[in-house]
C-alpha cells in the first residue's frame, strides 16, 4: 500500500499529466504537489504524485555513503 515509485514528469495538462520510467508511461495527477515541472522526478502513489524527489539530497546521501 505504501508502494510508491520515483518517476519522471514528461507531460503536464493542468492538474494531470504523464510520468515515465524506463519506457513505462503512466497517467498521473499532480494536485497534491506544488508547481510540477517537466523533467522533475516525483514519487507516484496510487496514481498521484505525492512528493518531489530531491536530486541534491539523493546525491548527498550517495556521496556520504561512498566516502565511508
Amino acid at each position, binding site marked *: 500500500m505504501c*508502494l510508491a*515509485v520515483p*518517476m519522471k514528469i514528461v507531460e503536464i495538462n493542468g492538474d494531470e499529466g504523464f510520468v515515465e*520510467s*524506463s*519506457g*513505462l*508511461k*503512466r*497517467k498521473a495527477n499532480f494536485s497534491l504537489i506544488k508547481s510540477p515541472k517537466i523533467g522533475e522526478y516525483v514519487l*507516484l502513489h496510487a496514481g498521484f504524485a505525492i512528493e518531489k524527489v530531491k536530486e541534491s539530497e539523493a546525491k548527498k546521501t550517495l556521496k556520504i555513503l561512498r566516502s565511508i
Partner: protein
Amino acid sequence: MHKLIDSLFMRELGNPILREKKDSAVVKIGKKKLAFTTDSYVVNPIFFPGGDIGSLAVYGTVNDLAVCGAKPLFISLGLIIEEGLDRDLLERIVRSISLAAKRSGVRVVTGDTKVVERGSCDKIFINTSGIGEIYYPGLSIDKIRAGDSVIVSGPIGDHAISVLSKREGISFSSKVKSDSAPLNGLIARVLKASDKVKFMRDPTRGGVATTLNEMVIGGKFGIAIDEESLPVTGGVKAGCELLGFDPLYLACEGRVLIVVQKDHADKVLRVMRPDPLGRSACVIGRVVKEFPGKVYLETLSGGRRIVGMLSGEQLPRIC
C-alpha cells in the same frame, strides 16, 4: 493448480506417462518416439503488444514440444468463439495463426470450431495440441546433478507486463512487447551443440521461480539463483516496481530455461547468442546439494532468501 492436478487428475487418470508431468508426453508408437502436448489459451486482452491469442496458441504448443527434444510437426486447432465476435477480429487472429505456424515450421492439420452464446466465453478461447518427433531423447529432471548450470535464453517477464499494460483498470502504457516466439530453432542449435543438456522448460505461468521449483520439488537438489545475473529489461523492472510484482514470477512465452552440465554452459551460450531469440542468454544459477527441493536467491545485497512456488497472487488470464 498443482494440488488440483495431483488430487483429481492423477487420481482418476494416472498412468506412467501422465505421471511424468512433462511439458509434452513422450509416447512410443512402434519404434518411433513422439512428443504429444496440449494447451488452452484464454489470454485477456486477445491482442497485446508483440502478439495475440492466435500466435500465442501456436508458439506455446510448439515450445512445449521443443523443450522435450522434439521437432514440432503438426498442430490441431480448436476454437471456441463467443457469438457476435467481430468478423475482422477473427480474421486477424486466424491470419496470425497462419503466420505463426509458418514461422515455426509446423502445419495446422486439423481443427474444430464451436460458437457459444454471448456471455458463455470471453470473445475467443483456443486449444492447440501438437505432435513432434523426438530427436534428442532422454531429457529428464532425473538427469539433473549438483553443479549443473541453469541458463535462461533472454530477459524475463516481458510477456506478463505487455499483457497487463493493456488491461482495463491498470492504465499504463509501456514499450514492453511480449516475448512470445517459437523456440524450436534456438533449441535445435543448443541440442546440436551439446549432448550434456539435462532438462529444459519454458517459464510460462508462475514464471522462472515456479518453473525452477517444479524441477527440484521433492528431489535431492536445490537451485541457487544469482539475482545480479537475472536479465530484466528496464521497462519490466519499472512495471514491477509500479505494480508490486516480482519479475521471477512473471510469465514468459518465448523464453527457455536450460539445465546443462557446467562445462558445457559456455558452448551452449556461444550457439545461442547469434540467434535473435538468444541474444541475452546467460547463466542465472546453479544446481546445488544444499536445500534439497528448494530454490533460493542470492540477493543483490549479499543476503539469501527462499524463492517459493507461486502461491496466491496468480495473475488471471495471462496466457
